[in-house]
C-alpha cells in the first residue's frame, strides 16, 4: 500500500485527481469524482466495483479511449490527458493492450491475422514475413501453436480469449488492460485464462483487470474497489490464488464423483 507514496510520478500509471463528468441533456452524470491512483511496473491489479461504480469509465480513461474531464493521467512518464483522438490512438497502439469480455476478434479471420491487426496500425512498416514471425511467436507464448490459421468460430472460448491476449501483447505494451476477461467463460476456462495472466505477470507485464467477480479478483495481487465514482478500498491481496493449483483442484473434483 505504501508504494503509492514512495514513487509519486514515478509509477507506470499515475492518476491525479481524475474526474469524468458526462452531460446528457439537463442531467449531469459524475461517473468518476476524483480518483488518484498509482500503479507500478509489474503489478497485477483487479479493478472492482458494482455496476455504476465508475470502474468502466475509469477503465476507458486508463485505456486512453476517453479523456478525463479534470485531473491528470500520466502514462509511462508522459501526460496523456490532453491528447487528441489520433494521438490517443497511437498511445493505445504502442503502450496499451486490450482484452475484452467478448474477445472482439474479427470473424472469418485467422488467429494469425487477428493477432497481426495492431501491427498494421503501428508506426513501423513490417513485411509479411516479419508480421507472420511476430504473430507466430506471440501466439506460441499463449499456448496456441498450430492454431494460427484457425478462425474464431473454430476455436473454444478460452482459445479465442488467448488469441485476444496474443493480439494485446504483440506490440509489447506497457499495460495490459482486461475488461471482464472471464465474463463470457465458464469457471474452468476462467481459471485457465487467469493462469495465462499470472504467467504474463511473472514475466513482468503490468496487468489491470476490471472484474466484478471477487474470486477472479483474488488471482490478482492488488484489488482496487470503486464505489460511486471514488476509490473505496485499495489493498494488496495477501495470498493470491494460484491458477495452476486451482486448475488441479477442479480436475480432481471432476474425477471424484465418477468413483
Amino acid at each position, binding site marked *: 500500500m505504501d508504494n503509492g507514496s514512495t514513487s509519486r510520478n514515478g509509477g507506470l500509471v499515475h492518476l491525479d485527481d481524475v474526474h469524468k463528468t458526462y452531460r446528457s441533456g439537463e442531467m449531469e452524470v459524475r461517473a468518476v469524482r476524483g480518483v488518484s491512483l498509482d500503479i507500478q511496473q509489474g503489478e497485477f491489479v483487479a479493478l472492482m466495483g458494482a455496476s455504476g461504480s465508475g470502474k468502466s469509465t475509469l477503465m476507458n480513461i486508463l485505456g486512453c*479511449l476517453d479523456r478525463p474531464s479534470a485531473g491528470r493521467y500520466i502514462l509511462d512518464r508522459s501526460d496523456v490527458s490532453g491528447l487528441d483522438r489520433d494521438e490517443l490512438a497511437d498511445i*493505445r497502439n504502442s503502450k496499451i493492450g486490450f482484452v*475484452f469480455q467478448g474477445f472482439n476478434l474479427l470473424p472469418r*479471420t485467422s488467429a494469425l491475422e487477428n493477432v497481426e491487426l495492431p501491427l498494421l496500425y503501428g508506426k513501423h512498416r513490417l513485411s509479411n514475413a516479419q508480421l507472420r514471425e511476430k504473430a507466430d511467436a506471440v501466439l506460441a507464448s499463449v499456448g496456441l501453436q498450430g492454431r494460427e490459421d484457425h478462425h474464431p468460430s473454430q476455436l473454444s472460448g478460452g482459445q479465442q480469449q488467448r488469441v485476444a491476449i496474443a493480439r494485446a501483447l504483440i506490440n509489447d505494451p506497457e499495460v495490459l488492460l482486461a475488461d471482464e476477461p472471464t465474463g463470457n467463460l465458464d469457471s474452468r476456462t476462467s481459471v485457465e485464462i487467469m493462469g495465462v495472466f499470472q504467467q504474463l505477470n511473472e514475466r513482468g507485464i503490468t496487468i489491470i483487470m476490471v472484474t466484478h467477480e471477487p474470486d477472479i479478483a483474488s488471482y490478482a495481487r492488488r484489488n482496487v474497489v470503486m464505489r460511486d465514482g471514488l476509490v473505496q478500498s485499495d489493498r494488496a491481496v495477501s495470498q493470491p490464488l494460484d491458477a495452476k493449483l486451482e486448475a488441479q483442484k477442479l480436475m480432481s473434483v471432476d474425477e471424484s464423483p465418477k468413483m
Partner: protein
Amino acid sequence: MRAGPTFKIAFRALRRNKLRSVLTALGIIIGVGAVIAMVGIGNGAKAQVEAQIASLGQNLILISSGSTTTSGIRTGWGGAGTLKIEDAEAIRREIPGVIAVSEEVVSNSQIAAGNQNWFTRLLGESADYFDLRQWPLADGIPFTPQDVRSANKVCVIGRTTATQIFGNENPVGQILRVKNVPFTVTGMLTPKGLSIQGVDQDDVVIMPYTSAMKRVVGGTTLRNINVQVADAKDIVVAQQQIIDLLRQRHNIRAGRDDDFTVRNQQDIAETAAATTKVMTGLLGAVAAVSLVVGGIGIMNIMLVSVTERTREIGTRMAVGAHGRDILTQFLIEAVSLSSVGGIIGIVAGVVSAKVIAMIKEWPSLISPSSIVISFLVSAAVGIFFGFYPARKAAQLDPIEALRYE
C-alpha cells in the same frame, strides 16, 4: 503513409465476405457490362451505316425526278418523269467540278437464261456508273460509252442474280433474256451487300440506260441522275448550281417548288448517323441508370456493413486505428468492389456485345475510350457512394463502438 497496410486490411475484410462482395459488385458488373455492350452495339450500327453510305461512292449528288407538280400532288422521289437525258448532258457540260454523271432508269423485271428465271431489279446507267459507285467487277468487263451510244444489248449482273440464274457457272459471255430480249452478260460485279434500306444491292442487272429505255422499260425520262464531283468541298456549290440549272431548264418560276429533288451524300449520312446516335444515346442512358443503381447498391451494402461491423471498427480503433485509417479502409473496400466490378463488367460487356453481334448478325464496335471511361466511372461510383458510409464509420466513438451489440 499507411496506404500499404490499409489496402491489406481492406482486402482482408472483403475476402471475409466473399458472397456479399460478389453480389455487391454484381450491380456494377451489370451496369458497366450494359454500358459497354450497348454502346458497342450502337457504335457498330453507326459504323455499318457509315460503311454503307461510303459504299454509295464518294462525293455524290443524287438528283431524283419529281416532288411537286403544278397541281400540288406530290409524287415522291422518282415518281414523275421530269428529268430528261438532256438535263444530264447539261449538267455534264455546264457544272464545274463534275467528273462523272450517270443517267439512271430503274425498273423491275423477270429475267431468264436456260431453264432458270428470276425477278430482279433493273438499272439503266451510263458507263461512268461503276467508277461513280466505286463498284469494281469481279469478272468480265463493264459496258462501254460506245455500248451506251448504240443501245447495245449488253449487261453486267450482281452476284446474287448470277447465282440465281447461272448457279456455279461463269455468267460472263452467257445470254440473259430480259423481258425476252436477249442480252449478253459482259461482267459480274463484286458483292456489295445490303443497302441502308436493307435491299440486297447484289440482286441487280445493270445495262446501258439507252438500252433499258429503248428495249426493256420504254419511256423517255430518267428516274435519277447520279453526279460525282471531284472534291468534297465543291459538293454544296455544285448542288446549288445543279438546282439553278435544272430550274432554268424546267422553266420553274421563282416561288414555285422544284420538280426534282437534290440530295448529297452527306445529307444522307447525317440523317442516318443522327438516327443511330439517338439510339446509342438511349441505350447508353438506360445502361447508365443501371450503373447508378449499382452504385446505390454499394452504398447500401457499405452502410449495412458499417453497422454490422461496428464492434470491429471499435476494436480497430482500440488497437490504434485512426479515424482516417477507418475512412480509407472503407473507401478502399467500396472502390475495390466497384472497380473490380467495373473490370469484370467490361469483360462481360465486350463478350456479350460480341455474342449478341454474332447471334443477331449485328456489327459491334468496342472503342477503347468507352472501356477507359466505364472503368473510371465505376471507380468514381465507388468513391462517391462509398464516402458517406466510410465517413460514418470513421466518426464512430470507440467506446460506443466497442460496446455495440
